[in-house]
């Protein structure tokens, strides 16, 4: 596939790397020649220096026969205009734009081929905000991923000795909760993945990923760890777009929110736009300020500035001072692996989240969503079963008959509004949404191939 990527920022670079590694023809446009030069020396792609929305620059990058345009420059307006240019002049079939500002996203009728021709809008801030919001709503969860418009949830949780199921084989879950259908999809013990079966025993300290319907999720969590009272007090460090959006969502649900922001003018703006949340002017790593605002009473502390180092340090400090759950934004993957898990409970990578979303649109065939678990250590793929028994490797077969790639399993099947857990005897029907688990990322192409309707049978 011929793909043009606009903007060689963190997201642009990461997407370019992923796509180039998968064997696509990638061209990157940016105004900064030195960044491009370095990129070109490390990755197998072409670089064009220039303003991303100029027609001449796009033509030079090969827009005439490009299959896809991914606009990830730092300017929303340039991204949208580039899509417009690509559509009007070059007729590019797929156009994806990163648009950060909420002001645009609120008016969805703006984005169609008659107006601003953007096929997919990606907003990293919104994705991360939604992600964090879900984590705060479910105390104790490491990761929460929604499937099938939220009907099905995947939840990661660290098992504690106090949980009813801990120390028992998974089979016991049926006896504990006879009315609840849930499926444990993966267990990580000492950073090694275990594909569980009924005899697997959950131990204290395991990271357990399970699938359950939305209302059942909390019940199942209680099996894994001591019951937690709902989160009430949240402190957010960093009043950027994510911090602001998160505070706005939380204050609407009557959380007590304290928001720390360094810059005076931004403080004034935040304080004007927020109604219940309190805004503090100061440094997120200011010991005195944290103590003065009762950090030890906080159920959740989120470090959301755009500075990785500051986030990590202030999160560690907050944990030391007695905050409940501590979350931090960490952009650099290298850092994410360094952080000891007893100091920062959850590290979130905005780029990872964005890339995941971008890749969903880029993946071929029937893939509806891709999510990385454990900072990319594992993947969950939501795919739609197409075709019929004659041309599909999935449809009409029982789950145990499907020849799955190694280290992969099917966690659940969403059929219309019903959610079926991925037991052996479930027969796949057309238009079912399948949730695949992969503990090995390299198997993604194999899963893609599995989901494609094979041409040879037609």
């Amino acid at each position, binding site marked *: 596939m011929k793909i043009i990527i606009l903007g060689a920022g963190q997201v642009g670079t990461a997407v370019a790397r992923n796509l180039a590694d998968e064997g696509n023809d990638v061209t990157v446009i940016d105004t900064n020649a030195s960044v491009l030069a370095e990129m070109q020396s490390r990755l197998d792609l072409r670089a064009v220096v220039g303003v991303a929305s100029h027609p001449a620059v796009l033509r030079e990058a090969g827009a005439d026969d490009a299959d896809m345009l991914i606009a990830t420059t730092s300017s929303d307006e340039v991204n949208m205009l580039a899509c417009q240019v690509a559509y009007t002049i070059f007729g590019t079939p797929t156009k994806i734009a990163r648009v950060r500002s909420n002001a645009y996203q609120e008016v969805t009728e703006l984005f169609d081929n008659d107006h601003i021709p953007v096929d997919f809008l990606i907003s990293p801030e919104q994705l991360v905000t939604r992600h964090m919001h879900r984590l705060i709503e479910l105390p104790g969860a490491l990761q929460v991923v929604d499937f099938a418009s939220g009907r099905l949830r995947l939840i990661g949780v660290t098992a504690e000795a106090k949980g009813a199921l801990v120390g028992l084989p998974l089979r016991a879950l049926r006896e504990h909760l006879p009315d609840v259908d849930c499926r444990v999809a993966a267990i990580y013990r000492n950073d090694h993945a275990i594909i569980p079966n009924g005899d697997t025993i959950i131990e204290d300290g395991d990271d357990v990923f399970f699938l359950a319907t939305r209302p059942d999720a909390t019940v199942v969590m209680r099996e894994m760890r001591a019951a937690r009272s709902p989160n009430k007090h949240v402190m957010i460090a960093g009043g950027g777009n994510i911090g602001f959006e998160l505070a706005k969502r939380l204050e609407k649900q009557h959380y007590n929110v304290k928001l720390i*922001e360094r810059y*005076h003018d931004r*403080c*004034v703006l*935040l*304080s*004007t*736009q927020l109604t219940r949340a*309190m*805004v*503090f*002017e*100061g440094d997120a790593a200011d010991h005195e*300020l944290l103590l*003065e*605002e009762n950090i030890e009473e906080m159920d959740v502390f989120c470090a959301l500035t755009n500075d990785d180092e500051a986030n990590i340090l202030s999160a560690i400090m907050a944990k030391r001072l007695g905050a409940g759950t501590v979350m931090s934004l960490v952009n650099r993957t290298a850092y994410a692996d360094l952080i000891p898990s007893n100091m920062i409970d959850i590290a979130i990578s905005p780029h990872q989240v964005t890339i995941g979303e971008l890749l969903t649109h880029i993946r071929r065939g029937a893939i509806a969503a891709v999510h990385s678990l454990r900072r990319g250590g594992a993947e969950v793929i939501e795919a739609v079963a197409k075709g019929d028994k004659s041309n599909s490797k999935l449809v009409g077969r029982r789950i145990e008959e499907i020849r799955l790639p190694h280290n992969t399993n099917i966690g659940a099947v969403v059929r219309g509004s019903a959610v079926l857990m991925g037991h052996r005897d479930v027969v796949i029907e057309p238009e079912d949404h399948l949730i695949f688990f992969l503990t090995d990322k390299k198997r993604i192409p194999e899963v893609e191939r599995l989901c494609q309707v094979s041409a040879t049978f037609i």
Partner: protein
Amino acid sequence: MQPKVVQRILGLLLCIFSVTMLPPAVIGYVYQDGGMRTFTLSFFILLIAGGLMVWRVDHHQAQLKLRDGYLIVVLFWTVLGLAGAVPLMVSEYPELTVFQAVFESMSALTTTGATVIVGLDYLPKSILFYRQELQWLGGMGIVVLAIAILPALGIGGMQLFRAETSGAQKDSKLTPRIAGTAKALWMIYLSLTIACALAYYWAGMSVFDAVGHAFSTVAIGGFSTHDASIGFFDSRLVEGVAIVFMFLSGVNFGLHFLAWRSRGLSVYREDAEFRNYAAFLLVVSILVVVGLLLTSEYGFSDSVITGIFHTVSLATTTGFTTTEYYNWAGSLPFILLCSSFVGGCAGSTGGGLKVVRVMMLMRQGARELTRMVHPHAMVVVKLGNKRVSDRQIEVVWGFFSAYVAIFVFFMIVLMTMGVDQVTAFSSLVACMNNLGPGLGEVAANYATVDDGALVVLCLAMLMGRLEIFTLLVLFTPAFWRK
């Protein structure tokens, strides 16, 4: 300072004002009460006076400066207060001293509604109509009217506009051009008045009373054509109509304009000042109604309607009454009197401090309390979703302290003159807030107040109407320095 420009505009305004003598003259002709002679005479006196002022300086047309604006507005209100007294002096009945006539005219123009006349029911119709009309002109501001109809004032009209209109945010224009804004305001004012007059007529008033009371209701004035005020009609329907229109006139006219332009009522719901205004009236009404139920001999329905009527009337600074509210038990009269400090919304015809200013003062107070617990908190004072800048809060605090200081000063002066404490306090509240009726000696009317005190109260009314600073600035040396 440009004395000749000021003189010219003053003369022009006086000429316009002389025209307002004509409707009462017509009324005088219709009722044959001798008013025709009074008002035609007054018309010529004022027209000639205005003409003389313009005569030699007609060619002095220049951009008005900020200072000229203040001077013109203050001079004009003073001159108008005096000019408005002319017909009352010319007319044989009522018999008033010069001071009383000026007080009456000033009270009308500033929409205070305090009267020195006893026996309104026996006055010539033309005089009665004139009092109501004067109040109506003062309500929206005659300078604003002049801006709307006189293109000559278009230059620098914003200066005049700012100096005369009420409220904390005077720079907000409804339309791009100042004359358009003034016209829009007067259109709304006129429509409200017509609607009010029709409603009063429907509720059972005579045509003369309906128009007269519509004038003083929409202007938040409080003059009546009867000694017993609204109580004369003894009709719950009339009281209901009065409540509705007093309430509407206490709302920012800019809001009415937006509602009219958007053809929807959502602008009211979204406006923070309106919400607080309605909530404040509701709370005080409940207090008063409960107080009446507990202490008075009124039945339930009478307590409710009388309680609400007096709350809305006094809190919006209209000053209509239906009964001797000042004889109610306990703190009720005092609560009602004090509610006039809050007054109407900014940009309405109501007096007092204005709801928006009180909101800002309260929120600033709350902010200081929050800051004591959270020293690093960034707390902004907000009205609705809009932030109020610290500068605006400073202005409001400055205004408030000036208000209090002037109040105390006038009170000392009045008490030095021998006025008793209750009368001095309540008459000042009533005059500075442009309310009208007070307590003690001035509960029903100001007929027994002596001349010196009347002068002080005239000043207080003017201070209240021009929101203090416009008037006070003239007493600073910096204003007169070249």
